[in-house]
């Protein structure tokens, strides 16, 4: 025993000194980021095992789902096809609304951050501590992941990248007490800050007591913190109560299941873009507004002989969009919308009554 005692002490002292150095020395892990060596060593030791275990789990799961558990696949296929058709119809409706919104934004000069590129990543581990709400994902700087990138799922916001290593990254969840996200209520457009608590809950701060907030209100990112793009779903208001100071106590239910994360998306590229008017098919603002306002119906037969070129340029107000085919049938042979698409629909009727002197 005494033969190895000196060697043991030497090894122990050397180990302590190496440990001390590992705690003090930082190593560059990104463009502007450096990390302590002890963190790098620990993460490098633990994450490969986590990745291997997740890989095995997915493999076994895939084997089970793809080759063994085939019961009900045919019916599920039919149900999914039906769901796809329904979603396609809804997508068409939503794209019309989105196009209108973009046109109006172009006119008003709004600039937004758009999600340009994302990287999918698997969740491979957690911090193991209730005082640190963070997870580890299997993508790092090699895949383009960097510090302060937003992390989301299809359900909503998850958090931001806290540290990026070579092939893994640590993500701080929104329910951690050191996390903060600039948000806006979708309905009332009130701005606030989402923070986590020591118990792992999510609260909305900085909303004055005289503001109207109801349970069920949707909360989305405001884009003001320059980390999270605007419009990402964060959660819904769960409970509202008056606070001790001038602000409300608002508890939020996160949209993403923060306790059951398996796959996430890291937003690796955002674009600041203002939709240009050239993209909007050269439609005038007044025409967009007139298309959405109620119109005065045409007098039957009163304008059958009036040529289109005599139509005055005065913009109509309170006009409802009248489909071209319907208007053509009402006015007889007059080509109403196709020859002058920017003209208000009922300008002929206004001429006889409202023409300015």
């Amino acid at each position, binding site marked *: 025993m005494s033969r190895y005692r000196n060697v043991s002490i030497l090894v122990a002292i050397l180990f302590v000194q190496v440990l001390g150095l590992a705690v003090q020395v930082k190593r560059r892990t990104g463009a502007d980021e450096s990390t302590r060596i002890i963190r790098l060593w620990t993460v490098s030791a633990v994450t490969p095992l986590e990745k291997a275990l997740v890989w095995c789990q997915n493999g076994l799961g895939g084997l089970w789902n793809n080759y063994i558990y085939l019961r009900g696949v045919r019916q599920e296929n039919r149900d999914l096809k039906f769901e796809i058709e329904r979603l396609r119809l809804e997508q068409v409706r939503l794209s019309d609304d989105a196009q209108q919104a973009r046109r109006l934004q172009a006119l008003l000069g709004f600039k937004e951050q758009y999600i340009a590129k994302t990287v999918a990543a698997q969740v491979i581990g957690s911090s193991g501590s209730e005082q640190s709400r963070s997870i580890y994902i299997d993508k790092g700087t090699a895949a383009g992941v960097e510090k302060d990138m937003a992390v989301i799922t299809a359900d909503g916001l998850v958090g931001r990248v806290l540290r990026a290593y070579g092939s893994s990254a640590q993500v701080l969840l929104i329910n951690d007490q050191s996390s903060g996200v600039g948000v806006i209520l979708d309905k009332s457009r009130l701005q606030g800050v989402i923070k986590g608590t*020591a118990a792992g809950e999510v609260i909305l701060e900085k909303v004055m007591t005289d503001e109207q907030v109801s349970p069920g209100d949707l909360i989305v990112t405001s884009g003001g913190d320059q980390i999270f793009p605007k419009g990402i779903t964060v959660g819904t208001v769960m409970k509202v109560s008056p606070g001790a100071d001038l602000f409300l106590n608002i508890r939020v239910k996160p949209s993403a299941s923060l306790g059951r994360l398996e796959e996430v998306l890291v937003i690796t590229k955002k674009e600041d873009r203002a939709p240009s008017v050239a993209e909007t098919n050269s439609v005038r603002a007044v025409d967009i507004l007139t298309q959405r306002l109620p119109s005065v119906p045409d007098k039957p037969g009163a304008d059958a002989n009036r040529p289109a070129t005599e139509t005055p340029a005065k913009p109509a107000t309170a006009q409802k969009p009248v489909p071209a085919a319907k208007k053509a049938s009402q006015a007889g042979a007059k080509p109403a919308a196709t020859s002058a698409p920017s003209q208000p629909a009922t300008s002929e009727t206004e001429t006889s009554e409202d023409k300015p002197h």
Partner: protein
Amino acid sequence: MPITYTSQDQVEVYRFSAPVAIAIPLAALFLQAFLPLRIHFFSLFDLPLLVVIFFAVARRSPVAGLLTGSLIGLLQDSLTHQPIGIYGIAKTVVGFGASSLGAKLDVDNVGARFLVTLFFYAVHEVVYFTVARGLVKLTLQWNWGHEIGGALLNAATAAVVFTLLDRFKQRA
């Protein structure tokens, strides 16, 4: 010379092989980081703490106990985003205390293990909260129900886990 054993005069001292001394703490850290993802309830457990107590009590050497506790605690800190050293300090204290206690008392039966783990879990939580709130200024909330439940759960788990780890003990 045969080793005689009495609970007052002499307790057995054990040692562990190098691979076991390295693999078991790493396995505990890995499970602590991985299992809460799949079993959310698992975040109540503190497997690295149980390993610290087991090694400290088995070795019955205060120096070895505090070194084991500090190392495992520092590694556990490295997986969080908090400053490194909070778990390190807490587990250093536990390692020292458990090994000092183990040098004087027989803690090899299930009941004693349950009580020792219950006591040192409470010590660990008090030290952690004191350091986290006093030095690091974290906003932590002490929840009696959560802490008592965690202490009982970890103590019950220790009674099982220590029995499994007994097979790796070697008489010194």
